């Protein structure tokens, strides 16, 4: 086993060094996941750093990140393993005529003909990895059921080969945008972490980390405005990533302050729907206009 973090504080520092500022509960749950070898289910709105958490964790632990992006219709052939049937076919054709059936069968269902997909490669890797199963809520319930064996016992059963147990224990992070309720069975096997938009100070720290050249006052105002925009009833509230993008945009423009004009020019960085733009322009624009003398 490689070095595991000894305390929550150590992991917090590690994640920080990897460019991710975890909240208290985030660090705690990540620590528990690593210590207890339990998968973590991370839920929350889009763009609060669910995927980033897995990446930072991989960086910190010095492990490879294996990522499985979920989508509707994802099946085990794409997630677990697949038989490389072209190769199997070639094998059969290349075989001399008189070979016995059983020999060929034994041959073509060997590891040689197995195409490992993310899940299989994650557990059969020689070094432990971080396995990210992204947007699990996009898949069907059947797929969740298929994951259960992997999540609880870290093993996969392939009918032709038998059981493949994990040669190393991966840290598993599942993310979900909460677009549908996940099954109880899946939840029971995971630690649960709800990530929400960070508090003002926390987000300020994140923005400052990613755009260090931006002055403190502008950054603070930026975060306040983003907070204000999130309070509105929008189709898509701005995410942390968008706050950072905005901060960088302001840097490029050399803005010294966020006034009404700057905001009007750059708000398309954080608001991405036409109707949302109107709402934000009306509400936040007024507040900013009132704020400037």
């Amino acid at each position, binding site marked *: 086993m490689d070095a595991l973090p000894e305390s929550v504080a150590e992991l917090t520092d590690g994640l920080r060094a990897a460019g991710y500022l975890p909240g208290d509960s985030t660090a705690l749950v990540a620590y*528990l996941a690593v210590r207890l070898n339990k998968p973590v289910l991370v839920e929350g709105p889009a763009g609060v750093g669910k995927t980033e958490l897995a990446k930072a964790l991989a960086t910190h632990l010095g492990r490879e990140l294996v990522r499985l992006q979920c989508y509707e219709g994802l099946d085990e052939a794409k997630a677990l393993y697949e038989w490389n049937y072209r190769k199997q076919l070639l094998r059969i054709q290349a075989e001399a005529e008189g070979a016995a059936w059983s020999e060929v069968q034994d041959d073509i269902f060997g590891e040689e003909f197995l195409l490992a997909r993310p899940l299989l490669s994650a557990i059969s890797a020689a070094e432990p990895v971080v396995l990210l199963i992204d947007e699990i809520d996009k898949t069907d319930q059947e797929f969740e059921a298929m994951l259960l064996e992997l999540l609880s016992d870290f093993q996969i059963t392939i009918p032709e080969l038998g059981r493949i147990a994990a040669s190393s224990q991966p840290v598993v992070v599942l993310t979900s945008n909460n677009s549908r309720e996940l099954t109880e069975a899946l939840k029971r096997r995971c630690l649960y972490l*709800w990530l929400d938009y960070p508090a003002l100070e926390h987000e300020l720290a994140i923005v400052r980390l990613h755009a260090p050249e931006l002055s403190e006052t502008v950054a603070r105002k930026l975060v306040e*405005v983003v907070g204000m925009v999130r*309070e509105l*009833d929008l189709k898509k509230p701005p995410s942390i990533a968008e706050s950072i993008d905005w901060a960088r945009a302001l840097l490029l423009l050399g803005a010294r302050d966020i006034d009404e004009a700057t905001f009007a020019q750059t708000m398309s960085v954080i608001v991405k729907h036409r109707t949302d733009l109107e*709402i934000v322009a009306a509400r936040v624009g007024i507040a900013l206009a009132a704020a400037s003398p």
Partner: protein
Amino acid sequence: MSASAAPPGIDARLLELAEELRAEGVRIGTSELLDAFAALAAVGWREREAFQGALAATLAKSPEDRRVFDLVFERFLFRAAEAAALREGVREWDAAGDRADAHRLDLDELRAQILEALASFDAARMRDLARLAVAALARDDASGSGVIGIDVQRIRRALGLHRDGQLSLGEGLGVPREALREFEAMLRRELERAKIERTETLAPSRPLGELDRALPSGPAADLAAVHRVVAQLRRRLATHGGEVRGRQRHHQIDFRRTLRASLQTGGVPIVIKPRPRRPRRPELYVLCDVSTSVTSASVFFLSVLHALHDSFRRMRSFVFIERVSEVTDVFARERAFSAVSEAIARDAGVADVSGYTDYGRVWSEFRMLVEDDLDPRANLIVLGDARTNGRDPRANDFAALAARARRTFWLNPEPRLYWNYGDSVIAAYAPHCEVFECWTTRQLEEFVKSLTTTTPS
């Protein structure tokens, strides 16, 4: 779960906590409990955050569960501490002296300090100040309404802390919302603590109310659900309660369809096709309370109103606090929900001086506005908590209105438990209308369902 028993080990305590969580509907299996113990072994117990976090990560597996968990955990610790305090006879308030001191407190000074603490989000200071505020404003039992939630709102108002969402960027920092919410929770705890000391008993732990456990979600999330229910409401109102009598009861023959059907039988009209009876469109008058005592429910009310406007063409809506004001044209003008609620907040002009609801005045004004238009086809729906702030309810005015309308409904956003408690006068109006408890989509659905079963008065 007797609190007086000798403290059992932590295992037993955790199991008790799990029991309470299960009672609140959190699904906790044995495997979760085992995980919880394993998790606790991996973190230090010294810090409450870590302790709570480790338990939450293993026991509460959805945002709703997490919220319930935090509430129950809080309650569990609070009750454990209070039970111990009662056993040991520890008291914080030395009757007279302390109280007199508290009364001498300058309100403005207190307010300034609280604002400062809120702005810096200093939890310890906020807790102290919450204690002071409770001491200054709610120690006499006479001024309390008896319901803790309402007392909290009173104190908040008295301190002039507004929860108006608009973060004012101009004057430095406004009151941060989270801080204010946190502060209200502290006020609530202090009031509870004071009550426990006063009565010297620990009230049996009450199940969490729907309101406590409901996630503070955006109105958009609920809007779709409310719209669905309201569409049902329209069908029910159209088809029930208005029985057709006399000659009209007989069907009229639809000649076109009868002749067309007769083609099958060689032009002999054997099958008679009656003209389908179109239900008459119901008319709807909706009165919606938008005062501060129903703040938590007003978003829900407004979304109901919004949905009603989508379903009913012949509908007039009114909002009221002290005065009543018609907002039908606002809904006609604006389509988006947020725009509507904003417009209402901006130009309804229903608050006069005090900002407290005055039902009596509202009825008389409403009578003047619509009495001539009210006819037996009209349905009247009132959305409000019937808290008159001690003013005359003038139930006879309301009765006159209800008598003219076909059916009258009252949707009260308070739990039935609080009705007629404090300044709620729902009993005065109840004989003249059908009263329903309604502050969730589910209850709205139940209201709609019951429309078919209750007979029109």
